[in-house]
C-alpha cells in the first residue's frame, strides 16, 4: 500500500457545542508515517479535532480528509474504519470494566473481523509485548491506570491500524507507567514505521518525544513545527516554556512551572500535627487497599502524596475525611480522632475529590453560594468570601455559567474555590490537577501556596506530576497500599542518587515490582507468517454477522457478571406473578352492608336473611335512621345499605307490591357495578326461591312472578368463573414487557453514559449490528423468563395449558423482540441511565397495565386509550396467552393476533436503528 504524504488534512473546520465554539476555522495537514503531538490547554478543541479526524464526531463545518478520503462520506468512513484506531480520553473509557483483559481483546478482535486463531495469536503477541500477559484473566476494572492504558493500546493495535489516534493516553497515569507506555509506542513504531500516530497530551515534557507538534489554543492552531524548531522560535529551553510563550505571544513570563522550586518560606511547623495517621488500614473483602499507613502532617505544611494508580491514595484520603471507616488503625485531625459523625471537624476540613463532584446543573455562583450556606457562613461573611475568592480564582466572567459547561481547568478552580469557601484549616485534595494543562496547573499551585503561606492552611494533596511534587514541603511515596518513603522531595532524590524526582520515583517503585519474565520477550508485533494479512477482513463496509454476534457475546458475558441483576429479573418476576395472581381478584366478597329495617316483620326478616346468609355479603350493625345510613356509607364502613320501607310485610300480604331500596357506594364504579349485580342476583333468588326457604315470603311464589323465559348462561373456557385461570395467564404478558424493555433501555443508555459507545463510533460496526447484537441477549433472557413464568402458571397456579405450547412460545419470541425493541427505541431518546429508567417506566407502565385488556377488554376502552391499547404489543400477546391457556386455541385461531404482534418488534427496532447516530455530535 502506498503511504499518502499526509495522513489527514483539515480545511477550515469549525465545530460548536451549543453556543461554545470548540474549533474555529482550523486548517491543518498532518504528515503521514510520523508521530504528531497535539498540545494545548483543556477545552481548546484537541479532543474534538481528534474525534473529527477519526470520524467519531460528526463534521459540522469545513472538510476533513483522513487517509485520502472525505470523512463526511459514509462509504469512505466505513471503508477506512478498519485502518484507524482511536483511543478516547479518560482512563480505560472504552474498555469494559466487567470483562477480563482477554475478553476485552477478543471482543475488539471480532469487531475487526479477525478469525479465532488470528485473534489468539495477536492477543498473545500484544500482551506479551506490553507485559499484560500474566494478567489476561483479570477484570479490566481491577487494573491500575497504567495497565488500563496499555490494554487500551492493545485494543487499538489488535487490527494493525495504519493510523493510531491517542487522546491524552497518559493523563492520570503514574510516571513509571507513563515511561513504559512511551517506550512501548516507540517499539511499536520501530516495528511498523509506516504507521501514523496522532497523540494529544497535557504533559509538556512528553511532547519533546514527538516528531511534529501542533500547538492549539481557543479552537485555533497557534503553531506547527517540530519540537526543536518550536523551542528555537520562542527562544525557550523546553516545550512547556515554548507553549507558555506562544500562549502569551512572547517569552515574557519567567515563572513557568518547570522553573519553580519549593518556596523559600518554610511553613510554621509547631505544636501537634494537623493530621496524624497511625497504622491506617482498609480492606475490601480480601483485598487490602491501604496497609498500615502512618504519617504526620504539620500545620501549614503542603504534603504531597505520590504513587501509581490504585495504590491506595484515594482510599487513605477518604479514611481521613471519614467517608470510609478504617478497618484498622487510627487517624487524628487536630488531635481529634476522625469520626464520621463529628460535624465540627468537617467544618475545619475542605475536600476535593478526584472526579469533578460539584453540581453540573448549577451555575458557578449557585455552587459557591450553596456551599457557603451549607457551612452557615452568614450573609455578611458569604459576601466577603465571594468578593475575595471570585477574583482570586478568576471566576468573575463565568459566574452565571453552568458548571458542567466549563472547561476542565476552570472546573478544577471552581472545585478548589468551593473547597475553601468556609476557610478550612485543612485541605485534602485528591489529584486536583489531573488532566489540567500546565498554565492552569501553575495558576492552581499559586493559589495553593497562597493559602498555605499566607493563611496557614494545611494542604494534603495527591498528584502524578513531578513538578507539583517538587513544590510540596514534604511528600510520601505510596505503592500497593504501603508508604515507601516520607521526606522532603530533595531528600528523596538524594536518597536514590537520582537526577530527578521522577527517576527516584521510578527507582523506588521498580524495586517493589518483581521483574516480569515477559519484559524481554521482544516487541515483535509486526505480522509474520503465522498471522495472515487481514486487509480483506479490515474492509468495514457491509453487514457482518460476526460483528453482530461479537456484541451479543460481550453483552451476554456482562449480564452474567452481574448475577444480582439477573436474579432480580427472574426471581422478581416470579414473585410478582404469584403475588398478583393470588392478589388480584375480580370477585367481590365480604361486601360490608347494613340494613335499615323500618318494618321488622317476618317478611322483612325473611327477605334480609338471604343477604345475611350469603358469603358475598357481610352484615354490620343495623341502621336506625336515614341519616345514619348516609353517614355510615360516607365513612366508607358500608358499601351497601338495604332499606325496607314501613308496612313492607303488610303490603306484600295485601298483594299491593313493595319496594326495597339498595344504596350502593358508587365511588368505585367498577366495584359498585359488581355489587349491584350481586344484589340483583340475591333479590332474584328471593323471588324465585322455593317456598320452603322463606315461608314468610310464600306470598311471592306466584306464577305471575315467574320469568317468561329461561336464560341458560354457559360460561365458556372458565366454567367455574374462577379468578385464577383468568388472571394467571394475563400476568406474564405484563412482566415480559416491562422487565425486558427497561433492562434493554438501561443497557444502551449505560454505554452512552460510561463512554463505551465510542467503540461503536470508531469501529466499522454498523448500527444494526450494535443494536441487534445487544438485543439478542435480552431476547434470550426474556424467553428464559417466559419458560419460568409459564412453568409457574401451570405448576403452581394450576392453570392448565389447553392450547398449543409451540404457538405460545412463538408468540413469546416475537413479543420479546417487541419488548426489547421498545427498550431500544426509548434508549435512543435518552442520554443517561436515569432518564432511560424514568422514560421507559413512565411510558410503558400505563399502556401495559391499563390498556392491554388485562382488567377490561380493549373493546371496552374509549377514545385514545383504545387506540393506544390497539397499538401496544401487550394487547396482542395477552390475547394469545389467554387464548392458548384457557381457550385452548391453536395457530389458525390466533394467526391474526400473532401477525399483528409480529409487526411491533421489527418496527420498534427499525425506528431505533434509524434514530441511532453513527457519530458523536
Amino acid at each position, binding site marked *: 500500500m502506498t503511504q499518502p504524504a499526509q495522513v489527514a488534512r483539515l480545511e477550515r473546520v469549525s465545530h460548536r457545542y451549543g453556543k461554545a465554539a470548540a474549533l474555529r476555522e482550523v486548517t491543518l495537514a498532518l504528515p503521514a508515517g510520523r508521530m504528531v503531538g497535539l498540545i494545548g490547554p483543556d477545552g481548546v478543541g484537541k479532543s474534538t479535532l481528534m474525534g473529527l479526524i477519526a470520524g467519531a464526531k460528526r463534521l459540522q463545518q469545513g472538510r476533513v480528509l483522513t487517509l485520502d478520503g472525505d470523512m463526511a462520506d459514509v462509504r469512505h468512513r466505513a471503508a477506512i474504519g478498519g485502518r484507524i484506531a482511536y483511543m478516547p480520553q479518560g482512563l480505560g473509557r472504552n474498555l469494559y470494566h466487567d470483562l477480563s483483559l482477554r475478553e476485552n481483546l477478543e471482543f475488539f478482535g471480532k469487531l475487526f473481523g479477525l478469525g479465532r486463531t488470528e485473534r489468539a495469536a495477536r492477543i498473545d503477541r500484544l500482551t506479551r509485548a506490553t507485559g499484560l500477559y500474566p494478567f489476561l484473566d483479570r477484570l479490566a476494572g481491577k487494573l491500575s491506570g497504567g495497565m488500563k492504558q496499555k490494554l487500551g493500546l492493545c485494543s487499538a493495535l489488535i487490527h494493525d491500524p495504519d493510523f493510531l489516534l491517542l487522546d491524552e493516553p497518559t493523563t492520570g497515569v503514574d510516571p513509571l507507567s507513563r515511561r513504559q507506555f512511551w517506550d512501548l509506542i516507540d517499539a511499536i513504531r520501530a516495528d511498523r514505521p509506516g504507521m501514523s500516530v496522532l497523540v494529544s497530551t497535557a504533559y509538556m515534557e512528553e511532547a519533546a518525544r514527538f516528531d511534529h507538534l501542533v500547538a492549539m489554543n481557543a479552537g485555533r492552531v497557534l503553531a506547527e513545527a517540530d519540537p526543536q524548531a518550536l523551542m528555537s522560535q520562542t527562544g525557550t529551553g523546553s516545550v512547556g516554556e515554548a507553549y507558555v510563550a506562544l500562549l502569551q505571544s512572547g517569552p515574557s513570563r519567567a515563572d513557568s512551572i518547570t522553573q519553580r522550586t519549593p518556596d523559600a518560606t518554610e511553613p510554621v511547623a509547631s505544636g501537634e500535627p494537623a493530621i496524624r495517621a497511625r497504622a491506617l488500614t482498609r480492606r475490601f473483602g480480601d483485598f487490602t487497599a491501604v496497609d498500615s499507613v502512618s504519617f504526620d502532617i504539620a500545620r501549614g505544611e503542603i504534603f504531597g502524596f505520590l504513587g501509581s494508580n490504585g495504590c491506595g491514595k484515594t482510599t487513605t484520603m477518604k479514611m481521613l475525611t471519614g467517608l*470510609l471507616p478504617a478497618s484498622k488503625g487510627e487517624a487524628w485531625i487536630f488531635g481529634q480522632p476522625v469520626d464520621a459523625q463529628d460535624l465540627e471537624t468537617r467544618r475545619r476540613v475542605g475536600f476535593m475529590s478526584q472526579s469533578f463532584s460539584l453540581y453540573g446543573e448549577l451555575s458557578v455562583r449557585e455552587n459557591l453560594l450553596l456551599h457557603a450556606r451549607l457551612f452557615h457562613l452568614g450573609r455578611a461573611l458569604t459576601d466577603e468570601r465571594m468578593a475575595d475568592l471570585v477574583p482570586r480564582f478568576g471566576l468573575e466572567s463565568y459566574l452565571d455559567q453552568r458548571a458542567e459547561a466549563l472547561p476542565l481547568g476552570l472546573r478544577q478552580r471552581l472545585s478548589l474555590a468551593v473547597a475553601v469557601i468556609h476557610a478550612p484549616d485543612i485541605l485534602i485534595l485528591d489529584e486536583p490537577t489531573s488532566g489540567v494543562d500546565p498554565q492552569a496547573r501553575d495558576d492552581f499551585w499559586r493559589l495553593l501556596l497562597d493559602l498555605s503561606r499566607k493563611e496557614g492552611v494545611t494542604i494534603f494533596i495527591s498528584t502524578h506530576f513531578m513538578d507539583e511534587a517538587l513544590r510540596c514541603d514534604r511528600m510520601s511515596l505510596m505503592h500497593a497500599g504501603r508508604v515507601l518513603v516520607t521526606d522532603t522531595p530533595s531528600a528523596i532524590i538524594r536518597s536514590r542518587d537520582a537526577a530527578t524526582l521522577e527517576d527516584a520515583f521510578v527507582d523506588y517503585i521498580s524495586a517493589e515490582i518483581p521483574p516480569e519474565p515477559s519484559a524481554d520477550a521482544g516487541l515483535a508485533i509486526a505480522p509474520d507468517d503465522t498471522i495472515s494479512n487481514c486487509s480483506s477482513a479490515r474492509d468495514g463496509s457491509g453487514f457482518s454477522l460476526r460483528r453482530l454476534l461479537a456484541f451479543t457475546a460481550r453483552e451476554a458475558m456482562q449480564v452474567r457478571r452481574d448475577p444480582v441483576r439477573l436474579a432480580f429479573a427472574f426471581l422478581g418476576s416470579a*414473585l410478582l406473578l404469584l403475588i398478583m395472581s393470588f392478589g388480584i381478584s375480580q370477585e367481590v366478597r365480604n361486601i360490608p352492608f347494613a340494613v335499615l329495617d323500618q318494618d321488622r316483620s317476618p317478611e322483612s326478616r325473611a327477605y334480609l336473611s338471604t343477604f345475611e346468609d350469603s358469603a358475598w355479603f357481610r352484615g354490620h350493625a343495623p341502621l336506625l335512621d336515614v341519616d345514619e345510613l348516609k353517614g355510615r356509607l*360516607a365513612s366508607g364502613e358500608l358499601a351497601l345499605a338495604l332499606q325496607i320501607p314501613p308496612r313492607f310485610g303488610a303490603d306484600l300480604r295485601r298483594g299491593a307490591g313493595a319496594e326495597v331500596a339498595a344504596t350502593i357506594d358508587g365511588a368505585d364504579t367498577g366495584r359498585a*357495578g359488581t355489587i349491584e349485580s350481586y344484589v340483583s342476583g340475591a333479590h332474584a333468588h328471593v323471588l324465585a326461591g322455593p317456598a320452603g326457604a322463606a315461608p314468610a315470603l310464600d306470598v311471592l311464589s306466584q306464577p305471575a312472578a315467574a320469568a317468561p323465559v329461561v336464560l341458560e348462561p354457559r360460561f365458556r373456557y372458565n366454567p367455574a368463573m374462577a379468578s385464577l385461570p383468568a388472571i394467571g395467564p394475563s400476568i406474564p404478558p405484563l412482566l415480559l414487557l416491562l422487565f425486558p424493555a427497561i433492562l434493554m433501555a438501561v*443497557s444502551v443508555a449505560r454505554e452512552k453514559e460510561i463512554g463505551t459507545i465510542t467503540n461503536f463510533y470508531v469501529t466499522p460496526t454498523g448500527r444494526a449490528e450494535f443494536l441487534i447484537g445487544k438485543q439478542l441477549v435480552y431476547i434470550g433472557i426474556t424467553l428464559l423468563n417466559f419458560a419460568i413464568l409459564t412453568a409457574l402458571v401451570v405448576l403452581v397456579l394450576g392453570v392448565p395449558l389447553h392450547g398449543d405450547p409451540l404457538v405460545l412460545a412463538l408468540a413469546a419470541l416475537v413479543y420479546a423482540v417487541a419488548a426489547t425493541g421498545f427498550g431500544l427505541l426509548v434508549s435512543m431518546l435518552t442520554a443517561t441511565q*436515569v432518564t432511560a429508567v424514568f422514560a421507559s417506566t413512565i411510558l410503558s407502565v400505563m399502556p401495559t397495565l*391499563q390498556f392491554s385488556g388485562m382488567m377490561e*377488554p380493549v373493546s371496552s376502552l374509549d*377514545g385514545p386509550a383504545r387506540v393506544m391499547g390497539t397499538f401496544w404489543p401487550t394487547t396482542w400477546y395477552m390475547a394469545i396467552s389467554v387464548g392458548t391457556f384457557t381457550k385452548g386455541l391453536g395457530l389458525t385461531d390466533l394467526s391474526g393476533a400473532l401477525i399483528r404482534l409480529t409487526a411491533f418488534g421489527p418496527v420498534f427496532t427499525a425506528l431505533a436503528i434509524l434514530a441511532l447516530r453513527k457519530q458523536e455530535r
Partner: protein
Amino acid sequence: MQRLSNVFWLFGKELKSVLGDPVMVILILWSFVVAVMLEASGAGDTVRNAAIAIVDEDQSSLSRQISSALAPPWFQTPVAMNPDQAGAAMDTGRIMFVLSFPPNFAADVIAGKAPAAQLQVDATAVSQAQLGTDYISNIVQSETRAFLSGNPNALDPPLTLELRRAFNPNSNPVWFKAVSSLLNQLSLLTIALTGAAMLREREHGTIEHLMVMPLTPVEVALAKVLATMAVVLTAFTGSLLFVVQGALQVPMAGSVPLLVGGAAVYLWAAAAIGMFLGTMARSMAQFALLVIMVIIPVIMLSGGMGAVESQPDIVQRLTLALPSRHFLAFAKAVAFRGAGIESVWVELVLMAGLGGAFFVASLALFRRSMSLSS
C-alpha cells in the same frame, strides 16, 4: 435551626436539578396531564361496547325486539351469525357473548312454556362475564314481558328492588378512574424521582462531597424527599384542578385542600420508598428492576384495579403495608363521599407512619451504600 437551613438550601439545589432537566419536566407533564386524561377518559363501564352475536333460529318479532334492545353503550350492535361462526368468533376473542334463540321461541313464550334461550359467555374476563350476563338477562326478561303485554311495566313482580348509587348517581366511570389514575402517576413518579436523585448523586460522586460537609444523612435525604414532594405535589394539584376538575369535569364532594394535604402525606411515604430503593440498589439497572417490582403491586393492589376486600386475607394483610392502599381509601372518601378529616385521619396516620418506617430504613442503608459506592 442550622439543620433546617441545611435542608432548605439542599432542597433548593434538588429543585433546580429536577426542573433543569427538560426530559424530566416533559415526562412529569406527560404523566399528570396526558396520562391522566388518557386513562380516565378511556375508562368505560365494566361492561361497555361488549361485542355480542345473535344466533337467531326463530326470526320472530320477539327475537328482533330483544336484539335491538341490546344497544350501546353497554353492547355493540349485535351481529347475526350462524352457530359455527359464533363459536369461532368467540374463540378468537372478537365476540364476548353469543345469545341463541331456538326455533319457535316466540311461539313458546306466548304459549307460556317459558322456553330457554342460550347465552354463551367468554368467561376469561370474570367480572365482565358476570355483569354482562346480568344485563342481558334483565334485558331479555323485561323485553319479553313487554312483548307479552305491550307495556313494559304491566307485569311487574310484586316485590321490586330499587338500586341507587350514592356519590356517583349516574355511575360515571371517569370519576373513579381519574382519581385512581392520579394515584398511579403519583406513585410512579415519586418513587422513581426520589430514588433516581439518590442514585445519580452517588454515580456522580457528589454524595461524597456532601458527606464531607457538616451535614447529616438525615438532612441530605430529607432535602431530596421534600424536593420530590414539592415538585410532584405541585403537579398533582395542577392536575387535580385543571385536568380532573377542569377538563374531565369530575366533581369533588369533599375539600380540595384536604385532598391535597392527604396527597402530601402520601408523597412522603412514596418518596421514602423511593429513597429506600435508591439506597438499596447498587446500579441504575438494579434500581430500575426494583422500581418495577415495587410499582406493579403498588398500582395493582391498591384497590384501584379490583377491590381490596376481595383479595385473599393474607394478601390483604400484606397490602396494609402499601401506602397506596390507604391513600386510595382516603382519596375515595374525600373526593366522592365528602368525608372530613374526622373520618380519614386513620389513613393519614398510617401513611405517615409507613413513610417514617421506610425513611428510617433508608437512613440505615445510607452509610452502607456510601462504602459500596467507593
